[in-house]
């Protein structure tokens, strides 16, 4: 195949799931998940088949047996604008393909046009259910390039906020997952508790979402007066209500029937599909960047990494509800040990001066003007930082050319990568379970499409 053929083939290639007769064999092998599986007819000791070899393709159906249906992007249980195309044989899903891009807003391109100072406003809008995580990973990448060390309090404020963020994100997931499985009570409960966390964020950052609070160099402000009482109240309340959720959902026969053994994925498949976060942990692999590659000050805190066994929807549910408990544990430890001091680095080239100083000091005025018109210059280099978001590994790759704007800013969105494992989970399941499985992947389309 020449290069021109490749261009011709891909320039206007269809993104949709096509009938088997029109699908090239290697694409079909991928769509039926044959890349990850060994055909059952094959001798178990022989080497894995060549993925390009069409002769070992295990196509057991023809187009006459199956029907391709479209699901989304406007369907309410797709959590945004995810479009799923599924090939069904009766009620069984044979192939499926997530089609994304409906929320693409070119945030990586926008990030190249904004200074580092403005950048956190942009990235916070990607994963809109955990905006602080996005700001954190962007700030950490910028700080790695700048080579600045943060004051202790800034690190601990960041940790407190990311753990509260994990709680609110998982509560939101419990709510929407409950809704997808027909439990409207759970939806109301989840949103109610999440609102408590968001109210605290509003008090701290001024906004319920898209805070732009964690910035390169520290945080935008200190925690508000009386934050200890607010956080204590949130922890006590959520801890109590998690018991209610257990009564309502965890032991409920209908819920267990619909989640246990549904949408299972093995550890090998999850690793091969680059899945991270609760999907990887549900298969029994204790991989949590907070523990395995500690950032901030997570190595000083006690918490458990929750893992599952079967990699099914119930495991992913159990991991998330127990991670809320771990986050409460972490928040309580942070509450006890919060150090005093500065909440941002005192470097006049990076940190804007306090408002009051601008009225008295000429230099402060100049620094303020320079920072907000030109921004600060970041030394040349490139860096990849990764942290554990509620959905998995969120990474930020920044290339700096020495100017005040990132030359390239790439976010590795966990939802974007995790969505690839959805066809593996859906294969062989019922179409009615597809909604529960999609929900258990917890995709946030803002981050998937960026």
């Amino acid at each position, binding site marked *: 195949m020449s290069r021109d053929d490749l261009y011709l083939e*891909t320039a206007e*290639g269809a*993104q949709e799931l096509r009938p088997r007769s029109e699908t090239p064999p290697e694409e079909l092998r991928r769509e039926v998940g044959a*890349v990850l599986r060994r055909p059952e007819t094959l001798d178990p000791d022989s080497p894995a088949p060549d993925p390009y070899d069409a002769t070992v393709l295990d196509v057991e159906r023809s187009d006459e047996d199956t029907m391709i249906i479209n699901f989304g992007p406007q369907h309410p249980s797709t959590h945004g604008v995810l479009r799923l195309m599924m090939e069904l044989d009766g009620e069984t899903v044979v192939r499926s393909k997530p089609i994304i891009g409906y929320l693409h807003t070119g945030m990586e391109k926008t990030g190249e046009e904004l200074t580092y100072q403005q950048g956190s406003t942009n990235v916070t809008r990607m994963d809109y259910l955990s905006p602080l995580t996005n700001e954190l990973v962007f700030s950490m990448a910028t700080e790695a390039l700048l080579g600045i060390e943060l004051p202790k309090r800034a690190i601990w404020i960041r940790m407190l906020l990311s753990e509260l963020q994990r709680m609110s994100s998982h509560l939101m997931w419990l709510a929407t997952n409950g809704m997808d499985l027909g439990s409207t009570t759970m939806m109301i409960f989840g949103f109610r508790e999440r609102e408590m966390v968001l109210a605290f964020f509003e008090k701290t950052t001024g906004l319920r979402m898209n805070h732009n609070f964690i910035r390169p160099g520290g945080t935008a402000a200190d925690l508000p007066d009386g934050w200890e009482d607010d956080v204590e109240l949130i922890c006590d309340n959520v801890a109590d209500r998690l018991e209610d959720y257990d009564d309502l959902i965890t032991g409920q026969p209908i819920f267990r029937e619909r989640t246990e053994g549904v949408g299972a994925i093995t550890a090998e498949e999850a690793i091969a599909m680059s899945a991270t976060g609760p999907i990887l942990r549900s298969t029994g692999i204790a991989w949590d960047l907070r523990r395995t590659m500690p950032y901030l000050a997570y190595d000083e805190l006690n918490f458990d990494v929750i893992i599952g066994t079967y990699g099914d929807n119930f495991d992913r549910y159990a991991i998330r509800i127990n991670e809320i408990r771990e986050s409460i544990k972490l928040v309580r430890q942070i509450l006890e040990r919060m150090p005093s001091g500065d909440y941002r680095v005192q470097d006049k080239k990076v940190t804007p001066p306090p408002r009051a100083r601008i009225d008295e000091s000429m230099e402060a005025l100049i620094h303020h003007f320079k920072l907000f018109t030109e921004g600060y210059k970041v*030394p040349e280099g490139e860096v990849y930082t990764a942290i554990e978001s509620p959905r998995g590994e969120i990474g930020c790759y920044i290339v700096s*050319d020495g100017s005040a704007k990132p030359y390239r800013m790439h976010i590795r969105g966990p939802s974007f990568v995790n969505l690839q494992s959805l066809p593996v989970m859906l294969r062989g399941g019922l179409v009615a379970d597809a909604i529960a499985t999609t929900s258990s992947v917890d995709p946030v389309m803002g981050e998937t499409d960026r």
Partner: protein
Amino acid sequence: MSLLATLPPGVCSGSSGAGQALLFATRPAYHGLIAALKDAGFEMLADLTAVDYLSHPGRSLPPEVAPERFEVVVNLLSLSQVQRVRVRIQVPESDAVVETLWDLYPGVEAMEREAYDMFGIVFSGHPDLTRILMPEDWEGYPLRKDYSVGRVPVQFKEAPGPR
């Protein structure tokens, strides 16, 4: 570097500012290097992306590496050894074709589609190389440096209209 006992030909190590492990590979050595790293314990491909160095050709590179317009950047992760490594490959503009990694890491599929969609780098052997974020009939590759940022003219309420 303890990643591989000996670096294969066409591969050299570099240093990144933040002390992260970094390897540079030529295009013919690329697929073999990733396969060797996979055997050396890098089970997961964390990220694949590309960079267009059109307006920043003078970046710091080891002397063995000749700069080209594009770079494909692969971040590998080892769960067993708790280690990361980054591999950078120079891709010329005139022949922007790179071998796919899909046969090694099936999870690279969406990331390679994204790099194709945004930069127009063709990953030969990819099973389904179509645009992933942009519409199918989109022209141009948005993250290239010669692709300008879109602008919508602002129409103020009181301003007189065009006619």
